[in-house]
């Protein structure tokens, strides 16, 4: 079945070549990072996590969001998603894969990776995150592959895949919850130290994941001549809209709690993020962009004929995903580490190699997704 990934026209190959070269550049930069150390990144003693972990968080969210299709499709038997279910599963697979890669490149000693398994420490959430993420990856790989195979051979999926589907639903929630727990269990970082962090993560995940899938489907429709079905797109739009409203609501709740209580440790990072703190305005523009995009696109998305204006839809969705990425990525990291324990403010700016590595991983993810998508498309075409 894998060989189907290698059938395609000239544009397809150009696309693959483009992604491969970006991946290759990323690989080169990573080799450089291995040689020099993480010093080539913009991370510092005070902001010790940056772009990599930001992306990790974001992609875990995208992976978890597959559940927004799985639940209606498998639990409620809504068949709108039947044509794109496989893509949701592949997107989940690729996202977990990418998320794990981001953790890998963030490690100071990747050669000791297996210590996590050799010396398991159940107290550490990173240990659990490793477990749930690899579990989710395997689960979705099996599900996606079996679905593809069943489609290709025109046979029923084996009954045990159904059981795996049921397992995968709480599992999807768990991966993002555990990822949120990594942050919100730290009393040292008041910006993260909120019970609302996990729900907020899930809300943003259910915006970004379906939004990516929506763009993906629109692109497939436009470039690959594959029709996902108008109902599926419409439902995705609704999912994004509702999740977006919850996201905005959660943000306001957090905003209220922090500023009404006026707890100094909690107020400081929020003030730094939204209004600047002691003359440092690193995040202000990003924060407002993220907020504005969320609110603005919420109103646009509410419109029923949103999907019919393709260019607008592309634009709005891209902006929205970017806004969410800023919110649970960059801002989460920088505001989490600022102010430092000694009440200093440390700016974080990703460096060039760091960005190249990040782009490399994105490209590798996109490459994998393209290959998988092509397999699925070829199968759909051949039957």
């Amino acid at each position: 079945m894998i060989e189907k990934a290698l059938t395609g026209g000239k544009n397809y190959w150009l696309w693959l070549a483009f992604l491969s070269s970006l991946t290759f550049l990323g690989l080169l930069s990573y080799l450089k990072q291995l040689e020099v150390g993480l010093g080539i990144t913009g991370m510092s003693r005070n902001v010790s996590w940056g772009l990599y972990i930001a992306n990790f968080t974001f992609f875990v969210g995208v992976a978890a969001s597959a559940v927004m299709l799985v639940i209606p499709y498998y639990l409620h038997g809504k068949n709108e998603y039947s044509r794109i279910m496989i893509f949701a599963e592949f997107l989940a697979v690729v996202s977990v894969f990418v998320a794990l890669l981001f953790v890998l490149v963030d490690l100071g000693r990747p050669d000791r990776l297996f210590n996590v398994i050799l010396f398991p420490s159940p107290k550490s959430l990173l240990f659990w995150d490793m477990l749930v993420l690899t579990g989710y990856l395997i689960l979705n790989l099996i599900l996606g592959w079996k679905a593809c195979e069943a489609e290709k051979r025109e046979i029923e999926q084996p009954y045990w895949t159904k059981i795996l589907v049921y397992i995968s639903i709480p599992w999807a929630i768990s991966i993002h919850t555990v990822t949120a727990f990594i942050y919100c269990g730290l009393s040292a970082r008041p910006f993260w130290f909120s019970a609302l962090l996990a729900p907020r993560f899930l809300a943003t995940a259910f915006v970004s994941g379906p939004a990516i899938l929506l763009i993906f489907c629109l692109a497939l429709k436009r470039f690959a001549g594959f029709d996902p079905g108008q109902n599926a797109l419409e439902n995705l739009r609704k999912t994004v809209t509702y999740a977006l409203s919850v996201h905005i609501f959660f943000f306001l709740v957090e905003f209220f709690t922090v500023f009404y209580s006026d707890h100094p440790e909690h107020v400081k990072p929020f003030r730094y993020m939204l209004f600047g703190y002691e003359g440092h305005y690193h995040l202000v523009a990003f924060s407002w962009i993220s907020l504005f995009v969320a609110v603005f696109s919420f109103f646009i998305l509410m419109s029923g004929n949103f999907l019919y204006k393709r260019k607008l839809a592309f634009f709005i969705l891209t902006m929205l995903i970017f806004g969410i990425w800023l919110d649970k990525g960059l801002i989460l990291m920088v505001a989490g580490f600022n102010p430092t324990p000694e009440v200093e403010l440390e700016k974080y700016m990703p460096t060039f190699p760091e960005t190249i590595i990040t782009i490399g991983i994105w490209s590798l993810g996109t490459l994998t997704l393209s290959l998988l998508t092509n397999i699925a498309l070829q199968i759909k075409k051949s039957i």
Partner: protein
Amino acid sequence: MIRLIYAFVLTLFLILIPLFGVGILGLTRFFSIVIPYSAFLIFLAGSILRVLSWVSSPQPFKIPLTAGQQRSLQWIKSSYIESPYNKIGIFMRMLLEILFFRSLLKNEKTNPHVSKWLLFTSNKRFWLMSILFHYSLLIIVFRHLKLFFEPIPSIVNLLSRIDALFEISIPTILLTEIIVLVCIAYLLLRRIVVSQVRYISLTSDYFVLFLLLSVVLTGILLRHLFRVDIMDVKRFALGLFLFNPYIPHFVGSCFYVHLFLVSFLFAYFPFSKLVHAGGVFLSPTRNLENNSRTIRYLNPWNYPVKTRTYDEWEDEFREMMKEANIPVEKEDRKI
């Protein structure tokens, strides 16, 4: 199943030989010098003779297996690797075959299915395990060169370092150690579990796997448990190849078992199915061009045979042909 047991017992027996010979009889000289030298000689001579015996038979016909479009009309895209028509195509085909096990990659299982009759499912796992197995063995052999070369070529050190990519325990557990064990276990289990393969398996098939397994296991034991004085081992290894034999003192019986099994493997090589390593280069269905209509291929033993000539044939049918107004040879001549 009985074949599996034969093979297992045979392997155990082989392991016992050096244990007995060195451990009880103390024949260190025999096992550290005589055995390796004779094994190597058998290996070298046996392999060469085996290849020579193959090439002493000609390949009378050009019988490539075409797995793709032939080169015919210019506007039809021909598959120059799958159906090669020149040396480059052959080279590519053999390269892919030998380096990437291309034919095995194509493998797919045929399964009976109640309503669909047949189902073809891809079987890339077998390919993956095979290729990992072979490359691991290659790297392991390469790693051992550090014992035979002084100074050690940097490429050998580099490879060893890559093999020790993950820092697990001291001495580092190597990637190939794990991979090769997993692969042998897979290949063995496959022979036992898959009924088709179990049916065709001979004692020697199991035996080779057991032999390799015991070589690998004793090697791992030597690295991690029953350690040896590696300086002494290197001195021994270098001595062998410089015809200046040296009997290692600071090694245990595990070392002798390893050495004996490796020697046996080498000596066994030319007489076993392991010769596929050389034979694959000679396979006429893969290493010949599909151009037999373009260039005449010669068969050295092509001998004349008794055919039925046209004249003989016309003699039998002439009258009939004339009646039917079919032109005939002799008749024409007469007129």
